[in-house]
């Protein structure tokens, strides 16, 4: 008995130890990072010089710097000057307090002092430049400003306070025809033992639009969104969304999740001022960045957009009435943060030009190939849904078929009978693992969903249509065994396994099923298993959703920041999609290289209060590279203008269908799907396919090149061959300058050169 007791104790303590994650403070596993070489320079470092002096000149860009306060500007070939801080900021009447200082700063740094509990910010103007604590050095084709911040702290038992210094270098230089601004995070010298920097905002007012300027800010919200200057929306809060989605391992308590928001999936933003524009691409540290935008009169009299970077993770929580934070210890794991600015002029100075410039960037970075795919109807089919039933009190889970494999062919036939020749199916909720909530490591089909001998393999090899089976719960899942839960899942900063709950309708409270995230160290392993299963099953195609959308921090073992997670995911994707034709659901930028088709690209934005309108930025950027569809047009909240929006964005029409009538969904997790029985929208889908095919004939299969607002409520999408598609959202008919008449709530096509 005693022996058994002892064994039990050992086992228990073992389990307890396992369940706590040992985050030993991980080593940075980053790739080697290099910074431009800095050398001392008398002229640049002469603080008495109160005007701008030339610093570098390369290609079309010239860089000028003001040594007395580290301000700078870039002059482009057409004479437009882009200032790091608005030159007329002295006349600003709106900014107060810290914003006043930020107007004149190049960096804003947030810090936390766990000893004093202080959570505040430093701006380079008021805390460094003002006290002349900076040094400007020269780098090839640019300069480097080293900002120093001084702090006084009286140690115990000491008479005099000791001085601690923090030094942060900012590099500004011209490279590849762009301006690059980078902060050497790994080069930050932090002498203060208690001050932890956790967030850096980079050039918050670069190219800001003033109250006399005309133009807009572009943020990649949804398809792309414009915030026009001087809209008089002083009430609204600023736009602030993290790139690649908010960190999902941080619980957002009290958040009413009946509100859905789009995520930012492209690390870009842009500004257009008076006929010139720039596209900013967040090159380094984009996974930890957040795009922020303010309109005129909100916090300053300027409209500005910029990125801030979380160089350390900070988790806020409260115990009882005490609010405190945990900060990531050790040196920051992101060695460098940086944004590159590409300047545009003439007809390229607009969001169309920004998108085209970004397209070139994507082609170069990911070696994407130009390809023209025929227009198709994208149909997302739900194969089955899990339902909990009870027989005389014995609870069990059963799978309700919604569209079994035989029905897929039925639907395909119904479509081809109506002349819809090109159909792209994505098949959802079909796999055994997904339906039981397990991590997706197998391509085994749920047996009850297979009709006869038509299996998924056969469907993926069909010549009549393109069929993508979706693997959706690769990175996050609910059903994992006890061991797996403590070994293969993500831990947060305090070493606890992250176990968020799904949101329920109603008050939107997070009280649903618990789910977990896959620890970064195991991503490769799990995906390899999935890959071998797919190969064994002889699939020719596969679709993925969360792989291209989800990023998170992980503190289990060595841990990984989102950047490392991205690297792991990208590496794993390379092994999977090598010989498979892949479809991705509305992916992040880094996943684009794997996709042959994209499902569900939004044609609109999250409609944040300060956003004025949506623009098809994402679409212009990938048109002609990857075929994409809009979001399903039938699923309840698509809105009345959804079809026009899809046409405007040049995407293929998309639907979510099931074969069974809606009643099959009752009391299941999918009962929120709406209008999904295929016969309801079969005719509508046929019409839309024909419209898309018609547009394709007119555009000759060429890519979406530009987009403009013709007048209020009327827009035109312009294709590379000159074809124009007009879309009219108003209730009146409209005649365009080239004679095309567009009916109310409709569209019209004017063909281009074929």
């Amino acid at each position, binding site marked *: 008995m005693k022996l058994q007791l002892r064994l039990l104790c050992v086992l228990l303590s073992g389990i307890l130890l396992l369940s706590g994650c040992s985050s030993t403070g991980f080593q940075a596993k980053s790739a080697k990072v290099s910074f431009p070489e800095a050398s001392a320079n008398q002229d640049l470092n002469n603080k008495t010089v109160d005007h701008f002096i030339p610093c570098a000149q390369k290609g079309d860009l010239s860089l000028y710097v003001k040594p007395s306060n580290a301000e700078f500007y870039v002059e482009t070939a057409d004479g437009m000057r882009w200032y790091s801080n608005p030159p007329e900021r002295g006349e600003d009447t709106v900014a107060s307090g810290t914003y006043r200082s930020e107007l004149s700063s190049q960096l804003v740094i947030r810090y936390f002092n766990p000893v004093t509990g202080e959570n505040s910010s430093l701006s380079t103007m008021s805390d460094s430049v003002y006290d002349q604590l900076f040094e400007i050095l020269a780098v090839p084709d640019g300069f480097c400003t080293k900002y120093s911040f001084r702090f006084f702290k009286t140690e115990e038992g000491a008479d005099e306070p000791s001085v601690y210094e923090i030094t942060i270098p900012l590099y500004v230089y011209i490279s590849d025809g762009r301006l690059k601004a980078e902060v050497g995070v790994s080069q930050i010298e932090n002498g203060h033992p208690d001050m932890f920097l956790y967030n850096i905002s980079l050039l918050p007012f670069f190219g800001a639009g003033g109250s006399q300027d005309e133009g807009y800010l572009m943020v990649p919200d949804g398809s792309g969104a414009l915030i026009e200057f001087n809209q008089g929306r002083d009430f609204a809060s600023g736009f602030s969304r993290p790139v690649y989605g908010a960190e999902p391992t941080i619980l957002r308590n009290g958040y009413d999740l009946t509100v859905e928001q789009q995520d930012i999936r492209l690390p870009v933003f842009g500004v257009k001022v008076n006929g010139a524009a720039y596209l900013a691409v967040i090159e380094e540290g984009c996974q930890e960045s957040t795009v922020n935008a303010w309109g005129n009169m909100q916090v300053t009299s300027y409209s500005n957009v910029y990125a801030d970077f979380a160089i350390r993770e900070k988790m806020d929580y409260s115990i009882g009435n005490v609010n405190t934070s945990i900060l990531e210890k050790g040196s920051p794991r992101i060695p460098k943060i940086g944004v590159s600015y590409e300047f545009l002029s003439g007809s390229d100075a607009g969001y169309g030009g920004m998108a085209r410039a970004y397209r070139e960037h994507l082609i170069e970075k990911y070696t994407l190939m130009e390809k023209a795919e025929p227009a198709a109807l994208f149909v997302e089919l739900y194969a089955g849904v899990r339902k909990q039933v009870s027989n005389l009190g014995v609870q069990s889970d059963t799978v309700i078929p919604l569209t079994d494999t035989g029905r897929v062919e039925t639907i395909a036939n119904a479509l081809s009978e109506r002349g819809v020749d090109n159909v792209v199916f994505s098949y959802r909720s079909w796999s055994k693992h997904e339906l039981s909530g397990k991590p997706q490591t197998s391509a085994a089909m749920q047996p009850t969903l297979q009709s006869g001998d038509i299996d998924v393999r056969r469907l993926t090899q069909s010549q009549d249509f393109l069929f993508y089976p979706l693997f959706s719960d690769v990175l996050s899942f609910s059903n994992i065994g006890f061991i797996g839960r403590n070994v293969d899942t993500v831990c947060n900063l305090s070493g606890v396994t992250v176990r968020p709950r799904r949101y329920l309708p109603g008050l939107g409270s997070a009280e649903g099923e618990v789910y977990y995230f896959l620890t970064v160290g195991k991503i490769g392993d799990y995906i390899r298993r999935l890959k071998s299963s797919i190969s064994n099953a002889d699939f020719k195609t596969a679709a993925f959703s969360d792989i291209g959308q989800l990023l998170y921090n992980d503190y289990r073992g060595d841990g990984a920041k989102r950047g490392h997670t991205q690297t792991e995911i990208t590496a794993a994707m390379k092994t999977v999609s090598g010989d498979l034709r892949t479809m991705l659901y509305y992916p992040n930028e880094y996943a684009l290289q794997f996709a042959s088709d994209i499902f569900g690209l939004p044609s609109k934005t999250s409609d944040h209060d300060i956003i004025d309108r949506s623009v098809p930025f994402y679409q212009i950027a990938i048109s002609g590279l990857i075929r994409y569809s809009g979001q399903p047009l039938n699923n309840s909240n698509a809105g009345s203008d959804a079809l026009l929006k899809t046409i405007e964005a040049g995407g293929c029409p998309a639907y979510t269908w099931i074969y069974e009538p809606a009643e099959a969904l009752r009391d299941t997790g999918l009962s929120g799907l709406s209008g999904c029985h295929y016969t*309801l929208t079969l005719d509508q889908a046929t019409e839309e396919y024909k419209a898309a095919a018609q547009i394709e004939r007119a555009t000759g299969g060429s890519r979406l090149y530009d987009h403009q607002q013709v007048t209020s409520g009327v827009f035109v999408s312009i294709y590379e061959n000159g074809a124009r598609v007009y879309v009219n959202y108003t209730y009146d008919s409209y005649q365009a300058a080239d004679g095309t008449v567009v009916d109310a709530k409709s569209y019209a096509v004017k063909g281009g050169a074929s």
Partner: protein
Amino acid sequence: MRRKSVCICILIFSVLFCLPAAAAPYRSYTYDSYGNAVTIPDVYEPALILNGQDMGVQTMGTPTDLFVSQSGDIYILDSGPGRILVLDGNYKAKSIIDHFTLNGEDSPITDASGLFVDNQNRIFVADTGNRRVIRTGTDGVITAVIDKPESAYFNESVEFLPEKLVIDRAGNLYVKCRNIYQGAVLFDKELGFEGFFGSEKVVTTAKALSDFFWKQFMTEEQKDAMADYVPTEITNFDIADDGFIFSISPGQNMPWQNMKTEMDGIRRLNPKATDTTVNKMSKSAYQSMAQDARRLNFIDLTYDENGFLNIIDDQKGRIYHFDRNLQLIAAFGSLGDYDGTFLGPVAIDMCGEDLLVLDSKKATVTVFRLTDMGRAVHQAVGFYNQGNYEEAIEPWQRVLEHNPNYELAYIGIGSALYNRQEHQSAMEYFLKGRDSERYSDAYKEYRIISMRSNFVYIFAGLIAVFAAVMLVRYILRKRRRGIVLTSGLQSRDISRYKLAFYTVLHPGGGFDELHYRRKNSLRMSILYFAALVLMGAFEQQFIGPQINMRDPNSVNLTGVFFSRLIILFLFVLSNWALSALADGKATFIDIWIITLYSLQPYIYCGFLRVLVSNFIIKEEAAYLQFIMIVGILWSLTMLLSGIMIFHEYELGKTILSLIITLIGMLLIIFLVFLLYSLFQQLTSTIMTLMNEISFRVRMG
């Protein structure tokens, strides 16, 4: 396959990351009759956001109220700058009234909180800051002023702070004033003070009474510290076409009593201020709503011409959309920074079919438009509430084609089928709509018809059963030699198992046999226990829907099993413990066996009850109770016999011992709870300690 015994609610919410864009950034939902919130397609979607610039000003200051007049103009009270902005029915700026004059002199409005426009387009403003109500025209010329009424109710200490107002068809003016608990202040159409209207009654609950009792003995300070039982003030009101006034009052969140929530504060007052609210919401749905509503704070409501009531809250930015019977059609809206969400909603009103919400923090008016789905629902509900069931079928079917969560749709179609005398189909739909009463009504008709047409078969069947029973008895009698199936049995051949059943009809003799011949059967008792548990599950799953509409998929055997086990165990334990004191002769096992044997009638009646419940209607539910009473009394009798015989008590002592056993059960429960909470404290201390240690180890 590994099954968890606790119910796994696996909702496929992987759609969380892949949901398509919403024209509205929220998902609308409603409550089904099991009390679950279910997603439904949007009934309204945000169509327009109007800000100051659309109204002809740079920006609104502090808008506090919104009113759409009979003629279709929209009036917005912008109390900061003290002006009224007017829009026409197409949301275009019409005029601005920013200058008010009284008898030729400037008389600006200050901190005005409410406005109303009567059918002669005269504007009434609750000019709170100036403690008056003014009546003005669109030119800003004040034509009437109401100051604090001269009345005993309004003495020195009471201030006149009008906040919201409403005028009925007769021209009477109802003014909601701050800190007035007697209801709304009522003025006649000549603006003379008439009295009060519509105060909330204080609910006399146990706590209220006990507080009243204790207050007699308290000092002033103590009394001040306690809650006051005054009627709550009205928060806001609106007037319906039929002259009824809908009002909302804050819920009273007092613990340990009727959880009065925001939902209870919705009232429909007739001209005599009697609450005539018709509430046809299902009980579970109402409870879930009330539960959620505790986190809400209703601030305004509007009643549209089609009979739909919209109420908005400012804690979560929720808009509840009810029909005239307070059935929830949809709940939508949220706080947030997006179009269609709010930061500081203050007022709601209808402009034709559109729903307008005034947000004072965003200084905007959000215009919501009916979606196609909303139109279908409105059509269907409209027809249904008028009794045009047939016409409602088509829109209801449209709704159901899109989404299966609308219970009203099933009930609506079922009602139409019932009217058409298609009772069986009606029953099917009422079952889907989870409406027990209507199912019962439809079943009633169906039963009559079905019995009539099948009468012959039923009769023949009964005769056949009767004949079979007689035959079986005859054969059995012939077979059995010497076994006398009357009381006072003598045979030693009867097995344990047969004995168990024998005790039902012959408790005295049976238990005697059990006790003296030691023919207890533990196995049988366990079988009976299994039957007991099964009966519980059976009942939950198979009870006739006309009696109780339960969600059959929520039946959980584990719960039934443990609850029955615990009660039985407690009883046996308590009785056994008592027997030690009272000279009882039965062992623990004996008592267990007696109890379970005695439960046989209860079990059999339970099964019978479930069977019968499928063939009766709601009004006949008394039969079920009768069956259960028979079962319970019979079981009790058996139990008494058993205890008497086994413990060797007399009758009086037996009854006494049973009573004390019950008390003993309560005692044991109390002790268990005590131990449990002690244990919990201990474990939580240990866990905290361990967490501390592991934390230190990790961080340090």
